[in-house]
């Protein structure tokens, strides 16, 4: 059985234009630009093992250096 991706709730989309006006308005928007379309999630991408390791390494490094900056900032206040 294929799992159906969870779709976030759509915003309240009360129709705000009558039919002829809607036809004209549709002409100026690309189909995937409509709010209804942008609320459909894009399919997930598969990251390679190396990419995941690299991202986690960078993430941990950034957090460690951030903690150093915050510690230094607080220490220098005293």
């Amino acid at each position, binding site marked *: 059985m294929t799992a159906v991706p969870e779709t976030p709730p759509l*915003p309240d989309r009360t129709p705000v234009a009558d039919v002829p006006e809607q036809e*004209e308005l549709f*002409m*100026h928007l690309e189909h995937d*630009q*409509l709010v209804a379309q942008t609320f459909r999630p894009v399919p997930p991408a598969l990251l390679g093992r190396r990419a995941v390791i690299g991202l986690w390494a*960078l993430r941990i490094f*950034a957090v460690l250096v951030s903690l150093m*900056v915050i510690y230094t900032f607080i220490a220098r206040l005293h």
Partner: protein
Amino acid sequence: MSTQDLTASPLLRQPLLSDEDVARSRDRSRVHLARHHDRRWHLLWLLVGPGILAMLGENDGPSMIAYASDGAQYGLGFFIPLIPILFAMAFVVQEMCMRVGAVTHRGYGELVLQRYGRVWGWFGAGDLCLTNLITLIAEFVAIRVGLAYFHLGAGVAVALGLILVLFTLSGGRYWRWERTVLGLALFNGLFLVAAILVKPHLGAVAGAFSFTPLPGGSLNTLLLLLASTIGATVTPWMIFFQQSASADKGMTPKDVAHGRYDTALGAVLAATFGIGALVAGASLLHHGSGIEAFAGAGIPAALARVSGGAVGTVFALGLIEAGAVAILTISASTAYAAGECIGVSHSFNSSPRKAAVFYAANIGVALIAAVVILIPGAPLLSIALNANVLATVLLPVSLVFVLTLANDRALMGRWVNRRSTNLIGIAVIVFVGVCGAAYGIDSFLQTVHLIGS
């Protein structure tokens, strides 16, 4: 209304338009008309906005204080040629954000979250919220410093910032918000006026572009100013903001060329005004005992003492403008990120009733920052400089995802990065990462007395 009702429109089974679609479509109809009638300047006028706002928004209070501190501490050399280089780096990053936003019609936060997983999406949003909150505090600080020159207190700074946020949100349209903030952002040119008023030696300004060697003095102070100057040009909020704003504006792949002009124009203006702040600050060289000398009384007061009251007044007004514009753009980037990550409506074209999270985040983050600056005795200059440093340290992770998204052929199709853009992008990530880490590690080791200062 059921989902079936929404999709069973008489118009070729297309979904009904929401008020956000209608507002965006009306903006797009003007773009179509201008393009159809080949009105080039009008088309440019309609399509500029996110790029200029991201760049001039980043010429914010802490950035202008950082530039002026660079000038006051080291003079014109070294940092003057660095500013255009940093804005060239910012252009490369922001162009990618604009392109991804125009092609996918989605913001950075939602794309990272949906494409690479919730962990990375929420990490990005967390970084953004942390750096945005600290930066917003620094923006209120900048307004406070500017107003202090006119003998006005922190309460006025708080009121001014919050009234501006509420006023710009009251329009209910992206277009109105963008044009209001653009109008305010042009006053960033006051820093250029300040530079002209200090009557710099033009030969010395031109000579500074010949790249003087690294200035002497404390390595840690130099690293602090270097990291905060980088943080003054490329930051996480700019990434979130320009991609989301490009999508909210309704830009499409046809508009990518104009998006590039917009981003390039923003970079040129921001670099020019940034150099203006540095040149004005350089008039304080040999008149202070280090950057901390300008805290409290503020740079405008020091400029008034050294270069005359007019320079102090213009610089103070510039700081108020820089802080105000950044409060608006940074609050907006927080609101976009909150709406995108939670998966609810996130557009200036939506009403507050339909995009409650978006509007609440926009006002809420500004409100929290405003409350913090009312705390007496806060170390103002230190907060301003460290806000930029923290943004620099956290930036490489966001940059990696920008590069990944811009190379995602499934999303971008033929609009993926060229090899040269990737090479420059990687160089930017390495440069930003090394500079941020160098300051963070060096200051930490000094603080715990593992190395001498």
